């Protein structure tokens, strides 16, 4: 029998994996306007998605190296800040990912509620 502590640790680990999977979609969705890293973190937090800073900055770099974001330094403020914005390729991908996400949530809702997309009752299997 799994102990409560082990269960909680496993839950934390799997939840982290789940959240990691949606970070790209969440990030791309919020960068239609250029934002610097910390502003994006606040933006996501205000909408209910907390993301660690140590996770976001490398992610932004990776998305940029994949051509999904573009960035430039802004030195007008009190300190230099790197502003990220979704690229045309990123926008196209965002639309595909959004469609995929919606399909997945529909399927998953059906699975979790015990109903099927194709009108079959999974619980009778």
């Amino acid at each position, binding site marked *: 029998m799994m102990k409560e502590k082990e269960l909680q640790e496993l839950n934390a680990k799997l939840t982290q994996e789940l959240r990691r999977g949606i970070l790209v979609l969440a990030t791309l969705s919020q960068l239609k306007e250029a934002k610097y890293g910390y502003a994006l973190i*606040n933006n996501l937090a205000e909408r209910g998605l907390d993301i*660690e800073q140590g996770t976001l900055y490398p992610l932004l770099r*990776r998305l940029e190296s994949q051509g999904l974001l573009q960035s430039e330094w802004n030195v007008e403020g009190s300190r230099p800040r790197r502003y990220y914005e979704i690229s045309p390729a990123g926008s196209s991908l965002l639309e595909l990912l959004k469609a995929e996400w919606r399909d997945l949530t529909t399927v998953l809702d059906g699975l979790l509620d015990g109903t099927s997309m194709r009108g079959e009752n999974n619980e009778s299997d």
Partner: protein
Amino acid sequence: MSLIDRYVYEVGRHLPRKNRSDIQVELRSSLIDALEDRAGQEPTEAEVVELLKEFGPPKTVAASYYPEGQYLIGPPLYPLFRLLAGIVLAAVLGAQLLALGVGYFIAQEPIAPLEAMVGLLNSIPAALGMLVIVFVILQWFEVRPETEGEPWDPVSLPEISESATVNRGERIFGITMGIILLVVLSFFPESIGFVTTFGSELFTNPVIAQYIGLITFSLLFGIGLDVYLLWQGRWGTFTRIAKIAANLLSITILFLLVHGHSAWLAEHGASGFFTALEQLPDSTNGDWQVIGMAAFRMAFGVALIITSLETVVMIFRLVRANLKSGFSPETMPPS
């Protein structure tokens, strides 16, 4: 802000050189943003410490900038490295054995076992080291072998070889014999020799006594390998290479024994086998010992030939298996 500067510097030490300074500037800027947001313009050291703890250890933060991880030889290159390492290992062992054999049979060079072992110990790390250097360079330049899109047919999957299963009876027999020999060598070294008829005088074998240390080591190695194989239940890459190494050691010892017996027989005026036989009728003045030693030499010679052949076959199979389907231990039957 000195703590933040120290943190950013430390992260930078572990970052990829390519865009290190760029990442450092962004990291510093983000940390100050976060700090100002929480503590205003005059944060306390405790607040800075708390923020940095949230960010995580510098090495961890730096590592997150390597999306594929940091490797000396990364996962895409590793299967190829393993395949080539196996081929190189087998080739080096084979070449050493061949050089030893050629030296002995053709050039009539005396066998120097220690030299041969040292040669192996030097050449294997040197060859593998060169291979590692080549792969580290490939990794550095992010060379990736083209594997995607290759046509693949499940029907072409190799059959599962039953011969990869360890023969338990064979291993237990080997362990038992090894232990018996070890006990004899350790506790009754003075009794190693031969008698002509039951109850007659024991002629000690001076050549075997000379190499007891090496023989003991070889037996211990063999027993250890057999025990490990019994525990594992299947032959693997490591055990196959270890078995080849054990055989090479046995070959070296058998060479020494044959050579030692020949030298002893030559000293006693019976260098050839038939010379020893000619002395058979004259058994009253110790010549029985000559005949016994000649018999020992013949037995060791036969064992030497069998072990050499077995080893060559093992190396050949190892190389062939590697070339055929990667460095898969399951494709080479045990000896």
